[in-house]
C-alpha cells in the first residue's frame, strides 16, 4: 500500500470567468495532518470541496489511492467532511445524526450502537446521545459534526474551517483535541483555515495559498522561520520586512548597517527582502545596538510589550519585556540566525 493518499495534478476551477483555483498540484500522504492556509477567497475551500466531490473540476485530475476519482460522485467517495457550520440535521438527535452514514450503509443495529457510543466517547460527548441538536452549544455541535464524520471510518477527513465559529478559549482547546484525534485515528486530515496560529499548532505540513495559487509548502517551522516570499512572511506571524543587499560572505546590509547572517543563496550584490520576527529584535541601550531608532508607540499586550520603533525612516515592530518610553532613543540587536533573506 503506497504512502500516497491523494494527489492533485494541475487542478483548476473556474466560476464563469472567475479563476478561483489556478493550476494547483499537490500530494498528500497517509496519516498526516495537512493544513490549507490562506486568506478568504484564496481557493482553499474550493479545493477541499473538489476533493470531497461537491464541486466539479474545470481542469486537472484528482487521484485517490492511485485512482482517478474525478468521475466518482461525492456520495460514493470514502471521504468525509466536517463543515464550517456543522451541517447537523435539525430533525434528528445526536445519536441519529452520528448514525446517519452507518444507517445508509445498512449496518446492523448492534454494530451501529457500538460504533456511535465509541465515537461519542472519543469526542467527549458520552451521555449526549439523546439530546436535540438545538440544545447543544457551539462547541458541542462541533464535536457531533466530528463524530458524525469519523464514525464512518473514512480514509480521509476534510475539515472546512470547523473552529471559526468558536470563541478563542474553546478554539484553542479544540485545536489540541482535533490534533489528538488525528493521532489516535491514524488517518489523514486535510484542514482548511485562515488562522495561521491554528495552522502552526496543528499541522504536520502547511500549504500556504493566495489567489488560487500555492505560495509555499512546508512544516510549521519551515514556514515560520523561512518564508519564501513577502506574502507568506507577512501572513504567518508578524514580521518586519525591509529591503536589503547581500554583500557576500554571510554579510547583509540593511537599514544602513551591516549584519552577519546565515543564508547565502542570494547572488552577491543582489537585492533581497530581509525578514526579522518582532520577538527576535532585542532592545538594548543605543550604544550597544546594531541599529538605533526612536520609540514611536508602545502597547502592553500581556505576554510582552509591542514597541513601534522608527529606524532610518522605517517602522519596526519589536516584542520585548522591556518598556521603553515614547520618543526614547533605543538600540536594537538581532542574531545572525534570526535574519532571514528572501529572494526578490
Amino acid at each position, binding site marked *: 500500500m503506497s504512502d500516497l493518499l491523494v494527489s492533485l495534478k494541475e487542478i483548476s476551477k473556474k466560476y464563469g470567468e472567475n479563476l478561483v483555483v489556478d493550476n494547483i498540484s499537490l500530494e498528500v500522504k497517509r496519516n498526516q495532518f495537512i493544513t490549507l492556509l490562506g486568506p478568504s477567497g484564496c481557493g482553499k475551500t474550493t479545493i477541499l470541496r473538489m476533493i*470531497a*466531490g*461537491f464541486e466539479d473540476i474545470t481542469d486537472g485530475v484528482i487521484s485517490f489511492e492511485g485512482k482517478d476519482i474525478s468521475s466518482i*460522485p*461525492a*456520495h*460514493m467517495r470514502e*471521504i*468525509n*467532511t466536517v*463543515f*464550517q*457550520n*456543522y*451541517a*447537523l*440535521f*435539525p*430533525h434528528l438527535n445526536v445519536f441519529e445524526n452520528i448514525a*446517519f*452514514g452507518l444507517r*445508509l*450503509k445498512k449496518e446492523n443495529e448492534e454494530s451501529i450502537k457500538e460504533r456511535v457510543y465509541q465515537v461519542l466517547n472519543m469526542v467527549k460527548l458520552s451521555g449526549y446521545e439523546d439530546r436535540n441538536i438545538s440544545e447543544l452549544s457551539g462547541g458541542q455541535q462541533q464535536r457531533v459534526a466530528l463524530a*458524525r*464524520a469519523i464514525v*464512518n471510518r473514512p480514509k480521509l477527513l476534510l475539515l472546512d474551517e470547523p473552529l471559526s465559529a468558536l470563541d478563542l478559549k474553546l478554539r484553542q482547546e479544540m485545536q489540541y483535541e482535533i490534533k489528538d484525534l488525528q493521532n489516535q485515528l491514524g488517518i489523514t486530515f486535510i484542514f482548511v483555515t485562515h488562522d495561521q496560529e491554528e495552522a502552526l499548532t496543528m499541522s504536520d505540513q502547511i500549504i500556504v495559498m493566495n489567489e488560487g495559487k500555492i505560495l509555499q509548502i512546508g512544516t510549521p517551522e519551515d514556514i515560520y522561520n523561512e518564508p519564501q516570499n513577502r506574502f507568506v512572511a507577512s501572513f504567518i506571524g508578524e514580521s518586519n520586512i525591509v529591503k536589503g543587499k547581500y554583500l557576500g560572505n554571510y554579510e547583509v546590509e540593511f537599514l544602513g548597517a551591516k549584519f552577519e547572517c546565515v543564508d547565502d543563496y542570494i547572488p552577491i550584490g543582489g537585492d533581497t527582502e530581509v525578514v526579522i520576527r518582532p520577538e527576535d529584535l532585542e532592545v538594548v541601550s543605543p550604544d550597544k545596538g546594531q541599529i538605533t531608532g526612536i520609540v514611536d508607540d508602545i502597547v502592553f499586550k500581556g505576554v510582552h510589550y509591542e514597541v513601534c520603533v522608527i529606524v532610518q525612516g522605517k517602522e519596526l515592530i519589536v516584542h520585548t519585556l522591556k518598556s521603553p518610553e515614547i520618543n526614547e532613543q533605543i538600540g536594537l540587536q538581532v542574531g545572525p540566525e534570526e535574519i532571514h533573506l528572501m529572494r526578490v
Partner: protein
Amino acid sequence: MMTKLMNILKWPLVLVTFFLLYFPIIIIAILSVNESQSAHIFTGFTFKWYEEIITNSSLRTAIFNTFLIAIISTAISTVIGTAVAIGINANSKKESTKVLMLSNIPIVNPDIVTGLSLMIVFSFVRLKFGFPSMLIAHIFFSVPFVILSVLPKLRSLDKDIFYGAVDLGCTPMQAVFKVILPAIKTGIITGALIAFTMSIDDFVISYFTTGSGFSNFSIWLYSRLGRRTFSPAAYAYNTLIIIGTFTTIMIMNLKSYRKERKRN
C-alpha cells in the same frame, strides 16, 4: 397629543372593526337557524337547514366537489411547490429571481384576470371544461402560495445540509427526502394549509374555469342567488365550517401550549 387622539379613538375603532368583520357572519349564523327561508324575518328557531346540507342533493354534490378539488389540488400543488422552492433555493440569484417573479404573478393578479387567462388558454387547447379544468386552475393559483411558505424555511437552513447528507453517502434524491424535507416540514404544512384554504373558498377563478355543470360551493351559491333554488342550508354549511375551523385551531394551539408547559 397623538397619544390622546389614539386613546379616544381606540375603542370606537375596535368596535367598528369587529362590526365590519363579524356582522355578516353573525347574520349568517342567525339565518342558519331561522325557521323561515326569507332573510328578513326571523320566524323561529330550527336546525332543519343543517339537515338539509345532506339531503339537498345539489348542495351535497357541490360541497363534495369543493372538498374533492381542494384536497387533490392541495396535494398536487404542495408537491410541485416544494420541488420548485427547492430548485429556486439551489439556483443563482438571477435565475431564482426570474422564477420567483413568475410564481408571484398568480398571487398578484386579480382573480378575474387569472380566471379569464386560464379560460382563454383552456379554450384554445380545447381542454374539457369541468373537473379537469378547475383542478388545473386551482393547482395554478395554489403552487405560488406553497412556494412562498416553503422558501423562507429553506433559506433558514444551513446551506451545507444537503452536502452533509451526500458526504455521508446519500444519493442526491435520498438527501432531499431524508434530510431536506424533514427539516422544512413546517413550511410545507403551512403551505398546504394556505393552499387548501384558498381552494375551498375560491369563487371567481372556479367560475371561469368550470363547465359541464361541475360546481363547487361558491358556484352553486352564485347560481342560486335571489332565486327559489337557494337554500339556507348554505348558511348552515358556512356556520359549521367556521365553528369547525375555529375549534380545530383552538385545540391545536392548546395542544402546543401544553407541550410548551411540559417542556418547562
